[in-house]
């Protein structure tokens, strides 16, 4: 019986090789993540492209869920609305498209365009400018975004992201969706691409040139933001919100100048003073604004 024996198995058998389970796990997860990311990107770009075909009435229906209606008689909304309507130009807006200008009594020096043709001008912005021309530039910029359906494109992109995220986790997906069209109305944070911003700037400058016959003072708000930003010394807390949501101001001013030269728009002209309703807001600032907001 003792003639036979079984060999002792080595420590590492042929069946169990050297393996790095965690490493191979992460390599595979990274691979899968890359594929997932690529799919998400394609889906987002696709959604962004098709969103522009959505009828404007659908956009308005979405906006109606969280945008408060404007009292047409209230000031300064009425003044802002009148100014916006005058900037649309003779070619008008595409059929069915409407503009609603809101006034936000927040100290942020910013303006936003969101779905349904809703534009918001914040108190901080009105306080930062001293002519109607500068305000017109900002308003026309936001109108251009709406004309090009930029907000709904961003919303489509965000929704595609929400769908992709929900494939990963239902909770994360609805969190993204909520963030996009939540009751908080976070639609104001819709971001636009550099090319969308550049196009809006070009359109806005053309609208200002058409309205006033010159582009003097159009860049005043951007210059003011640039001044505040450099005064803040790059401390992110005090850099105006506008600077964080829009492309480099240097670039914009340079491109505006270039465009004005190209199109032979007059860069000198008489500035139109702010309408009384807006001048009143600026005057009210004097009481506390200068001290309370040194950096903007």
């Amino acid at each position: 019986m003792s003639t036979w024996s079984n060999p002792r198995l080595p420590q590492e058998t042929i069946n169990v090789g050297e393996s790095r389970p965690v490493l191979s796990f992460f390599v595979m997860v990274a691979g899968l993540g890359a594929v997932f990311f690529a799919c998400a990107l394609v889906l987002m770009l696709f959604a962004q492209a098709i969103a522009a075909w959505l009828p404007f009435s659908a956009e308005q229906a979405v906006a109606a869920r969280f945008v408060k209606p404007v009292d047409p008689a209230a000031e300064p909304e009425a003044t802002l609305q009148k100014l916006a309507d005058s900037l649309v130009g003779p070619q008008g807006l595409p059929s069915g498209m409407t503009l609603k200008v809101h006034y936000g009594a927040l100290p942020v020096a910013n303006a936003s365009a969101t779905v349904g043709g809703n534009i918001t001008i914040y108190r901080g912005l009105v306080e930062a400018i001293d002519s109607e021309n500068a305000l017109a530039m900002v308003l026309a910029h936001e109108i251009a975004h709406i004309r090009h359906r930029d907000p709904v494109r961003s919303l489509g992109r965000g929704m595609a992201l929400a769908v992709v995220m929900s494939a990963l986790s239902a909770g994360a997906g609805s969190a993204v969706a909520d963030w996009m069209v939540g009751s908080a109305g976070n639609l104001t944070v819709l971001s636009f691409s550099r090319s969308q911003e550049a196009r809006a700037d070009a359109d806005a400058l053309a609208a200002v040139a058409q309205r006033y016959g010159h582009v003097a003072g159009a860049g005043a708000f951007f210059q003011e933001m640039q001044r505040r930003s450099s005064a803040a010394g790059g401390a992110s807390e005090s850099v105006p919100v506008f600077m964080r949501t829009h492309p480099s101001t240097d670039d914009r001013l340079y491109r505006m100048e270039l465009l004005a030269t190209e199109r032979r728009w007059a860069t000198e002209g008489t500035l139109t003073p702010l309408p009384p309703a807006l001048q009143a807001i600026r005057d009210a600032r004097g009481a506390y604004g200068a001290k309370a907001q040194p950096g903007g």
Partner: protein
Amino acid sequence: MQSLLPFAELIVFAVLLLVGYVAGRIAEKAHYRSIRKREKLFERVTVFSNRFPPTVSQPFQATLVCGSVVVSQDYFKAVAAGLYSIFGGRVRSYESLLDRARRESVLRMKHAAMRKGASMIVNVKFQTVQVPGSGVGAVELLAYGTALRPLA
């Protein structure tokens, strides 16, 4: 804390993955230690896949002996296997698991043979079956053979 709520699923997933990995690793190390120890212990019980003993020089009493193990994968192994099922390749996470199960089943079979006073098992075969309805995927590994007990 509230902002983490939407990602609860992902957090649970990550925790399960970590628990599965750590527990699986500890269990595997301990199991291999025990396997190596018992393989030395049961060394004198020899196993052969031949149908008949190499040389029939003395009378034997033959009995059926078997050893069975049911093993389950851990969460980490399951997820890793899911990834292998996309990318292909050696499912390394299962190789060690099934190697342990195979060796453990042989050890249990040897143990059964020793109790019967046998010193040799011939005609050894393996059978694997997936335990039905086990959500995470458990397999039974059965080793069986003919234990030969020399008659005086």
